[in-house]
């Protein structure tokens, strides 16, 4: 990859989740066999490949939006931050160096920096929208870890087959029991259980770094 003279190197500063073993070598991107890895997509985006950018956008728009919503607490500001984050990715992709870390971590850092910039630009009124930390709430380190876990999990969900993802999302976040999910989808309960297990197993493979 080339480096544009005017672009800045972006330092990796990714919080380490509790369950994640820090790899000695750059972590592989969670790309299933046959799919282009995030690192390859970033290289192509660095060459101004619009198609690669759209694929990368599809993989990361939810994690970036989720991160922005957590930090900014407002959908309008979060939408703006997502646009700014992807503009920064488009501009800076050529500065990504695979030997310095996984593409997902680099993207997380770029997105987080864009969100923090938006937070600062919004000024005190926007800061006031953030909930005050009380003694019962997680501290900044814990919040950072939670944000990174959400980032990885939401990114990993994009790798599931649509049927697996549907069942996982309904089972975890709709409030329905598995029997209700089965009735809702019009499939046997056994099918719901099978898809849940295979979805969790696929997520485990994608998130392997965090589970070691």
């Amino acid at each position, binding site marked *: 990859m080339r480096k544009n003279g005017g672009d800045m190197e972006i330092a990796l500063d990714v919080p380490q989740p509790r*369950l994640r073993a820090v790899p000695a070598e750059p972590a592989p991107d969670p790309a299933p066999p046959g799919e282009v890895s995030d690192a390859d997509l970033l290289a192509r985006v660095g060459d*101004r490949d*619009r198609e690669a*950018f*759209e694929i990368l*956008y*599809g993989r990361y*728009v*939810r*994690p970036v*939006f*989720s991160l922005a*919503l957590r930090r900014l607490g407002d*959908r309008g500001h979060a*939408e703006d931050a*997502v*646009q700014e984050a*992807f*503009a920064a990715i*488009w*501009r800076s992709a050529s500065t990504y160096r695979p030997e310095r870390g996984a593409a997902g971590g680099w993207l997380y850092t770029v997105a987080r920096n864009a969100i923090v910039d938006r937070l600062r630009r919004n000024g005190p009124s926007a800061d006031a929208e953030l909930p005050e930390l009380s003694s019962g709430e997680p501290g900044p380190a814990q919040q950072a870890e*939670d944000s990174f*876990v*959400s980032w*990885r*999990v*939401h990114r990993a*969900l994009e790798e599931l087959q*649509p049927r697996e*993802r*549907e069942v*996982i*999302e*309904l*089972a*975890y*976040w*709709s*409030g*329905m*029991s*598995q029997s*209700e999910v089965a*009735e*809702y*989808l*019009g499939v046997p309960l056994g099918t719901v*259980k099978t898809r*849940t*297990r295979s979805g*969790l*197993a696929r*997520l*485990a493979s994608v*998130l392997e770094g*965090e*589970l070691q």
Partner: protein
Amino acid sequence: MNREPNFDELIGAETPGAERERLRGVHELLVQAGPPPELTPQLEKAPGFGVARLQSRRVVKRRALVLLAATVAIAGVFAAGFAVADDHGSSTSAARTARTLQLAGTSLAPQAHATLEVWHSHAGNWPMTLTVSGLPKLPTHTYYEVYLVRDGKPWGSCGTFRVDGSSRLSLTLNAPYSLRKGDSWVVTRPGAGGQEPGNTVLRPVSA
């Protein structure tokens, strides 16, 4: 959500030790992460950078003017159509429709889509026709509900319906409210504990 998923219930007893612990780790991460947010229509498509920025301001301005002219022309045609309909009782669909929305399924019903045609008001009622497909059948005694959305929030119910698994269904509903500019509609299904409004399954797509 009120109810946290139970790992043993989700997985059953068949999965053995090591694999079971591996899946339990994922389960805990899913619980910790919470649900991914629903994307707003503005975020559905990747933004355009680079090529668009290379276009001269003059080209952009000229395209904007052409677009504006086209919009004015289309609006004029519609206005003329409404006038003719009011004067002569035309029964054409375009003239009777006050607004038509295309709705797309959310992650809770990704295969679903619908068209909502809102007709001109009569005696304070805004009758509407919802043509929907791809919604799954709901459990007994639960219903889909069409909600008027105002200022970004569900504001009032426009009726409930069920589906039977047929490929396409057309229903007549009503909004007995004073509609405002910016009003929109969503379709929901009951959430946990049956609270209202429930979870959105169909929402408008951007033009």
